[in-house]
Structures are given as C-alpha cells and as structure tokens.
C-alpha cells in the first residue's frame, strides 16, 4: 500500500476548511492593540487544506491504524477491553461536555454528583477509606500517592527515604518514586514469578517509606502473601502501595484495602473500559486508608445540605494540587457509566470473564509455547519464546511482527524484563471464545512457519501498509517534525 503524504504536503496557500463570521464589532487597528515588539513576525507554518481534503486525510490515517474496534489487542498489562459506545454518547452530552471548570457549583451539580458517586464506587471496590479522582493517569496516581505517603511521614517527623519495587514492576513505579525524591531499591522475584519474600524482608527497615506491589503481578500471578508483607511493612510504619493496573483480575472478588494495602491507583482506562485514545487520555484516581486521607490533593468533592461543592480550603495537610482543575472529568464520567451498567450485582462477572479467557487462551497455547509460571494464571499470562529464539532464530519480536500479517495486534513483548523473550498476553473478558481460538491458531501457525522458514518471520510484516520499521535509524538521526522536503 502506498504511503500517505503529510497534511503539510497537501497544503496549498489560501485553502480553507472552515471560515468564520464577519467581525460584528468595530475593528481597531492591531498595531494600536499589540505593541510592535510583541507581535509575531514569523509565519504560522500551519497546513491549508479544503474541508474534504482534511476529512479524507485523517479518515485515511485512521484506516492505517488498528484499535479494539477493528481487532483483538491482547497487550499484557494494558487491559484492552471493549469501549462501550454508550459511554462516548453520555460524555458527548452538552450538559457534560460544555462545562467550564470555574462555573459556580450551583450550575454543575450533575457533574459534581458524578464525581461524588464515582468516589463512592471506587471506595467500595477497593476497600479504601478515601479516594481522589485528580490524577490524570496511573503514573500520576503513583506520584500523587507517594507524595501523600511522604507528607504522612513528614507529619510524624519521620524521614524514610527508600521505596522498594519488585524487579517485575512496571517502569512507572521506580520512575514515580524517584520523581518523589526517593531512592529505589529492587526486590527480586522467585522462579514462580512472585516476590522473593526473604529478599524483601531483608530490605525492610526504618528507612523504607513504601513498597509498590502489583497484584496480580505483571506475570499474572497473585501475590498470595501480600497481607503478611503488609504486616512486615506496617511494623516499621512503611506503606504498602497497590498498583491497580491489574485490578481487572480481582475487581469485586478481592479488595486491596482488605489485603492491607495503604494506598493504590486505579487505571480507569484499563479496568473501567475508557478508550485508550491511542496513548491517552486516561485517569488514575487514587485510594488511601484513613491515616493518609488528610494529605490527599485538593480540591475534594463534598456533599452538604445545599448540595455538592468543591472544597479547596479546608484541607491544611493536603499535598496541594497534583494538576489543574479537577482531573479528567470526561474520562471519569465514562467510567461511572460503565460501572453502573454492571452494578454491584454483576461487577464480579468482569474479573471472572477476564480470568477465564486468560486461562483458556493459555491452555490453547501451552502445548506450543513455554509458560514459565505454569497454571492457573489470573487475567494475563506470559509466554517465553526463548526456545523459539534459540532453535528457530525467531524471537518475540518476530512473532509479534508476523501476527500483524495474520491480522492480529501483537501482545506486549519484552516485558516484564525478568522473562527472556517475553510475550505477555491479556485477552480481557470482552473477547469471545471464537476470537481467542482464532488468535491461538494464528500464533501456532506462526510457530510452524518459524520451523519451516524463519525468513517468513524475519521479513514480516508484509501485509501491512509499511514493512518492518528501522527504529535504530530513527533514534540515530532523529527527524521529529516536518520541514519542507524531509520525505
């Protein structure tokens, strides 16, 4: 398929895709309004196209992309489930979409109720005592919660400076910890994929502020000793952080709060079905136990006799603002629509479906690929293709690229870092049995192709608009913006 030229290359001086009404007030000369030295002198350098060409360009770009509406996207740790259309429609309502964040509380009671209700849902689901919807994404939730922990320790005059993270943890965990001024120490995993308790115990001391755990962890195994770990940490007043990225596995089945976790974040764009938007937006609310509540960011949504209102002032111990305004409201709203569709009575069906699908897909693949952590898994599982790499010279990357030729988006590869040639697969509960079987059949067929002729995989993908891309070259001589004649 041919490449699609850049919008800048489709531009012609003077074309318009939208026009505006005539100015209906007397116009003053610009010169009289903007001092000479402050006026823009360089051209804007934006594309000029007709409306048809604009629409066609981005429609064509969209058809050079894949999302879960076009196929299964079994990226491990990403929980790419169906994004219900009703959620989109509700968020598009004028009464939600066109609200200014500084409108008077009296004019946004419906919006505030949405936030208040969602906080209640998240408290119930997590077993935490308080929730803040502010954080924009999971990573910001991590940072926010760590700031809260730090403020808590500060308030007690303590200065623990170490955050522990398992070697299987997601990159944002250590990154958030150092963003918060902590030193990061890594805890090893055992062969079964769980945290090495001995190693962990040896690292717990007065200087430990927090341990960040993902449970089920990133290889899809439930850390069954988590409450013991919590007890150890609490002995030294260290906090147990629950990374909620994998909450889909246990939502309404088990609660972080009941496991002894002190704080956590939710990945609304994973567990609660909000569209991932090709990289975002998401939302990363956090939940905390009572002792951390005073330190949550402002504003908080309160319900009073007069109705709902946003409070900025009455939280003296708050860490302050983690972002402007009130979080990704449009995304949080979608999450509430999703939760209401399941209700308390059917919420557990989600995790049951997710775990069933993951185990079924693993069962279909186990005869052909190494599953280092055995069965059963929770909502996701990891394959190791090191045998394929060794015997057939085809690694996880080659399989991933070849999957595209079979019409599938690849799973997560080379994460978690502790598994060689890792392929981390999370089907989610919204994929049908037939889809799982077809996907498994494709992976198995590729494994056979690899035995017959590894070149097929090395050359892959061949059915995509572009072939395998040279990432090394991209990083060596970065071309990061359009300039005339680059392409």
């Amino acid at each position, binding site marked *: 398929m041919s490449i699609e030229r850049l919008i800048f290359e489709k531009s012609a001086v003077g074309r318009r895709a939208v026009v505006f009404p005539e100015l209906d007030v007397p116009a003053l000369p610009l010169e009289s309004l903007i001092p000479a030295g402050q006026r823009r002198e360089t051209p804007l350098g934006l594309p000029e196209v007709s409306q048809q060409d604009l629409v066609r360009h981005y429609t064509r770009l969209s058809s050079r992309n894949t999302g879960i509406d076009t196929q299964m996207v079994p990226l491990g740790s990403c929980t790419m489930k169906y994004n219900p259309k009703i959620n989109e429609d509700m968020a598009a309502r004028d009464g939600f979409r066109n609200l200014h964040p500084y409108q008077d509380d009296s004019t946004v009671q419906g919006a505030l109720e949405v936030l208040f209700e969602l906080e209640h849902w998240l408290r119930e689901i997590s077993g935490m005592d308080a929730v803040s919807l502010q954080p924009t994404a999971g990573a910001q939730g991590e940072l926010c919660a760590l700031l809260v922990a730090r403020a808590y320790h500060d308030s007690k005059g303590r200065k623990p400076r170490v955050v522990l993270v398992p070697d299987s943890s997601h990159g944002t965990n250590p990154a958030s910890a150092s963003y918060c001024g902590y030193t990061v120490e890594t805890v090893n995993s055992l062969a079964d994929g769980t945290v090495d308790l001995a190693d962990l115990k040896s690292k717990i001391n007065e200087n430990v502020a927090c341990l960040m755990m993902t449970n089920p962890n990133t290889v899809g195994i439930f850390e069954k000793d988590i409450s013991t770990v919590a007890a150890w940490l609490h002995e030294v007043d260290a906090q147990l952080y629950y990374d909620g990225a994998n909450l889909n596995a246990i939502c309404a089945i088990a609660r972080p709060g009941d496991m002894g976790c002190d704080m956590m974040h939710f990945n609304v764009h994973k567990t609660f079905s909000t569209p991932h938007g090709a990289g975002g937006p998401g939302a990363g609310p956090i939940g905390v136990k009572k002792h951390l509540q005073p330190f949550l960011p402002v504003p908080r949504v309160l319900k009073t006799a007069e109705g709902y209102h946003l409070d900025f002032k009455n939280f003296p111990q708050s860490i302050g603002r983690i972002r402007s305004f009130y979080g990704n409201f449009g995304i949080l709203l979608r999450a509430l629509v999703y939760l209401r569709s399941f209700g308390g009575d059917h919420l557990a069906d989600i995790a049951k479906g997710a775990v069933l699908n993951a185990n079924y897909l693993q069962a279909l693949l186990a005869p052909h690929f190494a599953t280092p952590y055995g069965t059963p898994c929770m909502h996701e599982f990891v394959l190791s293709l090191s045998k394929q790499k060794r015997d057939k010279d085809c690694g996880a990357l080659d399989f991933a690229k070849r999957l595209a030729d079979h019409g599938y988006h690849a799973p997560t590869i080379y994460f978690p870092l502790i598994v060689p040639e890792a392929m981390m697969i999370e089907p989610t509960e*919204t994929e049908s049995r037939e889809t799982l079987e077809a996907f498994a059949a494709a992976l198995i067929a590729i494994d056979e192709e690899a035995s017959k002729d590894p070149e097929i995989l090395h*050359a892959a993908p061949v059915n995509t608009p572009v072939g395998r891309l040279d990432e090394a070259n991209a990083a060596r001589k970065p071309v990061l913006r359009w300039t005339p004649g680059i392409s």
Partner: protein
Amino acid sequence: MFQHPYLPATPEDVALMLEKIGAASVEELFKPIPGHLRLKGAMDLPPHLSEMELKDLFQGLADRNKSVGRLESYLGAGAYEHFSPTVVRHLIGRSEFYTAYTPYQPEMTQGVLQAIFEYQSCVCALTGMDVSNASLYEGGHALAEACLMARAHTGRNKVVLAAGVHPEYAAVLATYTHNLETEIVQAPLAADGRTDLAALEKLVDDQTAAVVVSNPNFFGCLEEGGAFARIAHGAGALLVASVEPVSLALLKSPGEFGADIACGEGQSLGISLSFGGPWLGFIACKQALVRRMPGRICGLTKDNRGQQGFVLTLQTREQHIRREKANSNICTNQTLLAIAATIYLGAVGPQGLKEVASQSLQKAHYLAGLLKKVPGVGLPYAAASLNEFVVRLPRAASRVLEAMQAKGILAGVALDRFYSGRENDLLVCVTETKKKAQLDRYAAALTEVLA
C-alpha cells in the same frame, strides 16, 4: 440467566472453556487468592442498568448542569470557550483512533504515529521551537515538567516565576518539586499588570535553573518575553515560556523571544471544556534539550521496503527503559487530544487561527470599552492585553457574579478564588463565540446589577 452485553461468554462457552482448561468451575480459577483475602458479603452498590436506563440516568445528570451553551460565559483563566469545527469531533470519533493503544507496534499503527508527527510539527511551528513531544497531561503538568527539564539540564535548584503564572500551574509545580529540594520564588506584579522586571531580576541568581514567564499572563496582560530571556540567559538559566496557543497567531512566539522551553495548555485548540479535562499539555524545546524531553516522541524512519514510516523514538529517555533514571514517569498521556488539536489547526489553518485570535481580541476590547463606561467600574491595568482583562468592581465580585448569573450570564472569574485581598476584581474573557448583541447585553446587565 442474565447475559451482560459486554461479556460474550455464554454458559455453553464457559463449560467448553473450563473443560479445556481442566478446571471444574470458574471459582476454581480464583483459588490462588487466599480465602481470607476474598471479599465477603456485598458491597454497597446499586444494581446493574440497561442501556435505556443508563441514558435516562446520565441525561438526567447532564440536565442538572447548565452548560456554557445555555448560559453566556465570559469565563477564561486557562479554560477557553472557542468554536470547535464539526470535523474535529467527527475525526477523533474514528474508532481506529480512540480505541487504539499507544503505538507500540508501529506497522499496525502508522495512522496514529503520523498524526502525532503532524502534531509535533504543528507545535514546533506555533511555538518556534525545534522539538515537541507527543503530549503531556495538561498545562500545569507541562510547566512542572519544563522546570524539571531545566533543573536537570542546569544542575541548579531554583525556579523564578513571573508574577502572572497561572496560580494553579504554580501550585502543581510546587507539588511536583516539593521533595526535590527546589526553591520556587515568584516576582511581584507591577502596577500596569505585568511582572515587575526589576524585582524579578533581583530574584534570579547563579542557582536559578529556570525563569518562567506566562504570556499573556494570568491577568490577560502581555509580558515582554525578550526581557525575560535576557535576564534568564544573563544568569545562565533557561527561559520557560508558558503560552496560550491561539494567542501565538498574533504574539511573538517563544522561539522568537528567546525561550528555551515552551509549554502550555492546548485545550483552546478545538478541545471541549469538559469541566477541566481531558485536555492537552504541550511542551516543546530547543534541539539541545531534546534528550531531556519527557514522554513519547514520534520520529520519521524507513521500512524494509524503503518506504517512509513513523515510530516512537528516543525511548531511552522513558520509564519503561530507564525506570528510576527516566526523564519522567509519564506513560499514558493525552494523545487523542493531541490529534484533536492537530485536526483543529488543519481545519482553521493559519488564516483561521489569526481570525480566532483577532476576533477574540477585538470583541474583548469592545466589551472592555463598554465596561469602562459603567459607573463604578474600573480597568486597573494599563498594559496591553488580548482577549482577557481584569475589571475592578465597586463591590465584591462574587456577589456581582451571582446577580449576573441570575440574568443568565457567567460574567467572569472572581480573583479572590486565587488571591485574598482581590475581592472586587473580576477576570473577564471574551472569545470569537460572542456576538456584539451579547456583549452589549453584558454591559447593560452589569450596569443594572451595580445600579
């Protein structure tokens, strides 16, 4: 038996799958979770709803809000009601965009990667910078990351803020740097509504990593970017410019006045207000700082067929590779909004963006002219402004707002929301969406309210 529409597995499916798995029940699959950790008893949550019921419920909640479409809004202060062409929502509504994940498999996601590349190109063009990333969370976050970039680059620990930096952005910066031994000081406001440059210069020293200027500033006044550049660079600090993108159609770009890093909120580029999010943090910098850039960056490359293509690049800056040594912890960002802004800019084009900026400017000055004449009302600041300005009222702004709201007008943002001692000051914003008749009505209503 109730079958949820989002769950395909029928009882027959479950039976077949369990058999293949070799488990007797779904319950059995959860045995890795120790019994004492299992949730006992029900949660306090209402029962499930059908789509019809969801529509009723949430339409009802929406109806309990009064949108800026139903009231006449003159609210700005970092959130702007500009007209968003219909095509923007149609195109970001393409499900191959919004239901996609981060483009980890570039061969299957060229559409998004190219759109990001076009976004980066637009941001560079607007700001006059060399490099843009693929988006940050929002304007306050962008400012914080910009300062952290400067801090890492200079190895210094102090940030000097101009007077008119958005107070919530300043608050976010304070939160982000709270545990990083970073000193943050802010220069005072001069009588004309701009930063007191002399005072600012005194605050800048050899420990200063960044000087941060906001243009237009929070009070709507135009700052003299060049002067900040001279002061910052004179002290070996970087200049961070937090700018409003529509204004760049008329104002000197950060690149033109010598900023090292430009950042800001992209919401005004066709993105709905949505009560504060999801929006778009943008950041762009000089070439020299590219490896300090946080977040995703898309780059051009070639495929094995010799065709041009796009990939996420320079990933060694990022958390999934560098972990605790990463430039930033950001992972999920605001890509879809970056695409929306790109489509908006393509839709209005250079001429359209100029019209949006200048019509907003002209209408704001028209309204300001009317308000000046309202008995008891003053315009405290002499400095030039675009489409936002401070009005000093003869009595508490909050009371006046109530009275105006009763007339269906959201007349502005009371500054005492942010600054004590400014009870009578109102920040008023006008965009191209307002008609002359509405502006006249505003002035008349205010006259009545103050009479």
